[in-house]
């Protein structure tokens, strides 16, 4: 295509994401979004006005060179686009699917000031998918080895992005993962229909080809302590995630049928309970039943949409504020609604009610209204006197966030954590109080997003590299 003027670029309408029909997909686990064709991608890429000072890059937690990779797509150089992405992002096919672009790069996109922003996320996904599907042999650029060894604790987004940067800097990297598969929340948490596991495996495989060493079934703190790791590695990055689910602390939470979102999603995603009994991990039978999910974040959306796919007749989001306050990505809320998820807003659960054998049967919900703003500036939900409703449910899934996992802190007395168990770091370089030990991701911030954890992993990788070059600088 000939060079377009900025005016012409503005005239091109944003291309929507081709997706599976809502009714059909609400009963299968295949991916909802189908991805751009190369024609659509090239045309969408022409919408980028190639700003001299690209604010989108500043809006990205890992600072992907967005205009550069988009320009390559516009020119049909998809392989080059993918390699530009990979310079800054170890998991582009993942981020193109799960990042909240509307709050980051696309939120600040200049094109978006007048119309709709460039579909940066969809283009990222396109380039990464194109490379995976078309480039069979990727010659990894093997950098000169530094001889320094780094242990990365936790194979989730923070750890993988840290490992990806460190290996490209020439360090020897070993990732230790407690579960039997690498990927952390990408494997156990985010469902197949939003992030196919094949994609996570391919991204991990490409890190493996670069030379990252992966050790599964290895719980740092128990199989080997941080102190012991220090003896055989030059630096350590802790990115173990949050991973200790909060419950509501209301009566009836012990009933059979009450799950944390972590358990529910782990059974379905990691253990493939949807394919029971071929996969022997069981799941409560929700076919034709009602499932209520408590919470308004991405995890709640994942759980409620998974319930539909397991055959639930009604799948309900129960959230104590309004849709405006929901932390979930707009696309997830939109997809959930299209698929037939019911939204009960301004309700708070009071009690789970079971039968005499301990099986969940009902939930008692308190109607709320928005009152005065609280310390966060959001209007606080307050109960409406006497407005209580009881609905019949078979399963309840609690998706209200995670506390910090205690295994590292309990087995590493020297490590300083705050009162919630989150590791305290210097935000600029992710250094903990222990020399040579860095941390990042949910274990530092509390539950956040994949991309923020990846950003922390990158910041740490840079700081680890500095430290390894000059250990006296600590």
């Amino acid at each position, binding site marked *: 295509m000939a060079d377009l003027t900025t005016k012409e670029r503005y005239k091109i309408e944003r291309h929507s994401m081709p997706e599976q029909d809502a009714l059909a997909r609400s009963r299968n686990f295949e991916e909802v979004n189908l991805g751009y064709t190369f024609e659509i991608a090239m045309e969408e890429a022409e919408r980028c006005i190639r700003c001299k000072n690209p604010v989108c890059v500043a809006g990205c937690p890992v600072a992907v060179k967005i205009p550069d990779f988009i320009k390559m797509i516009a020119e049909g150089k998809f392989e080059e686009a993918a390699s530009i992405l990979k310079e800054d992002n170890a998991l582009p096919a993942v981020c193109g699917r799960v990042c909240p672009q509307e709050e980051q790069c696309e939120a600040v996109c200049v094109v978006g000031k007048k119309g709709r922003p460039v579909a940066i996320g969809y283009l990222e996904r396109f380039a990464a998918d194109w490379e995976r599907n078309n480039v069979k042999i990727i010659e990894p650029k093997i950098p000169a080895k530094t001889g320094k060894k780094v242990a990365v604790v936790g194979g989730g987004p923070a750890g993988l992005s840290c490992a990806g940067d460190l290996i490209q800097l020439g360090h020897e990297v070993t990732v230790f993962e407690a579960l039997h598969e690498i990927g952390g929340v990408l494997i*156990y948490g985010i469902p197949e229909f939003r992030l196919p596991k094949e994609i996570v495996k391919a991204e991990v495989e490409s890190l493996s080809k670069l030379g990252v060493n992966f050790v599964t079934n290895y719980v740092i703190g128990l*199989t080997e302590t941080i102190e012991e790791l220090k003896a055989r590695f030059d630096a350590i990055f802790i990115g173990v995630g949050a991973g*200790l689910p909060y*419950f509501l602390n209301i009566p009836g939470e*012990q009933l*059979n049928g009450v799950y944390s979102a972590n*358990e529910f999603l782990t059974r379905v995603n990691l*253990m493939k309970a949807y394919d029971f009994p071929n996969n*022997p991990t069981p799941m409560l039978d929700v076919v034709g039943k009602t499932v209520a999910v408590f919470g308004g974040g991405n995890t709640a959306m994942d759980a409620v949409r998974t319930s539909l796919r397991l055959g639930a007749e009604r799948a309900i989001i129960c959230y104590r504020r309004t849709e405006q306050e929901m932390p979930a990505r707009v696309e997830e809320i939109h997809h959930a609604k299209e698929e037939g998820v019911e939204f009960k807003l301004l309700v708070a659960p009071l009690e789970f009610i079971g039968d005499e054998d301990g099986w969940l049967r009902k939930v008692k919900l308190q109607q709320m209204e928005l009152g005065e703003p609280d310390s966060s500036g959001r209007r606080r939900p307050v109960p409406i006197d006497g407005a209580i409703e009881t609905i019949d449910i078979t399963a309840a899934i609690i998706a209200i966030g995670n506390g910090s*996992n205690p295994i590292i802190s309990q087995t590493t007395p020297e490590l300083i954590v705050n009162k919630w168990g989150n590791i305290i770091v210097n935000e600029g370089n992710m250094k903990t109080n222990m020399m040579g030990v860095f941390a990042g991701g949910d274990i530092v911030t509390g539950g956040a997003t994949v991309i923020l954890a990846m950003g922390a992993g990158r910041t740490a990788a840079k700081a680890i590299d500095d430290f390894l070059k000059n250990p006296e600088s600590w």
Partner: protein
Amino acid sequence: MNKIIEARFIGPDVKLFRIEAPKIAEKRKAGQFVIIRVNDTGERLPLTIADSDTSAGTITIIVQGIGASTKMLNTLNAGDYIHDVVGPLGKASHIENFGTAVSIGGGVGTAIAFPTAKALKEAGNHVISIIGGRSKEFVILEEEMKQVADEVYPTTDDGSYGYHGFVTQKLEELLKSGRKIDFVLAIGPIPMMAAVAKTTQPYNIQTVVSLNPVMVDGTGMCGGCRAYVDNKPVFVCVDGPEFDAHKVDFKILMQRNKMYLPQEKESIEHFNHVCNYDKMYDAEAKKTNHEVTHG
């Protein structure tokens, strides 16, 4: 992949495995467990480490074939591999010199009680071991217990071996005889553990039980193993598995362990079906003299 060094039945459907796992063998303490997956689609099974040998780099687990996954595990033999073994998980038993300590194991629970009994002995306790079983063949590890305990009392419900009666009756007998007992550890079926707790309560004896709830990850991540102790929720995998028996809500534990009963039945039928199919296939292959590999 972890290699099985030794595998032998020690009771009806109860099999002992010695598995190569040097790092776990080196780190584990009494009371801790591992999670294993038999194959690449396998369920995550929590199993207490019964013993370890650091020089050989092995751990010992004892498995009762009840569900499809444990039955499948029990088809494995020395030389076979287990797909995943992770651990040691959970907190170690609290060990000190209490004075006289009674270790009670019911059925395969004796395998779980064994390492703690051994540790109690090493800490200087006078250890009394009560090994319960429905009948003689369910009384396991008697010889091993004799190596670590000062007194060993097998009991059977049907009187086919040792003391005729429940473990609690034997315990009650010891208490009534005026024996001073300072500590009781009870591991076995939930009704047995609840009964032991009830027996020791009036005597105000510190009593510990090891809980066996439904578990997935075993590292605190899922909360599926939550039990109620002192009316508060605990995650057995990271807060336990051992708890004060007088504070455990056994009713909730029992109720929660029934959560997947219908699925377990279906799973066993599926397992038997696949197993029979395999046998037929093997027989067929032998006839035609073709080599068979199983996926």
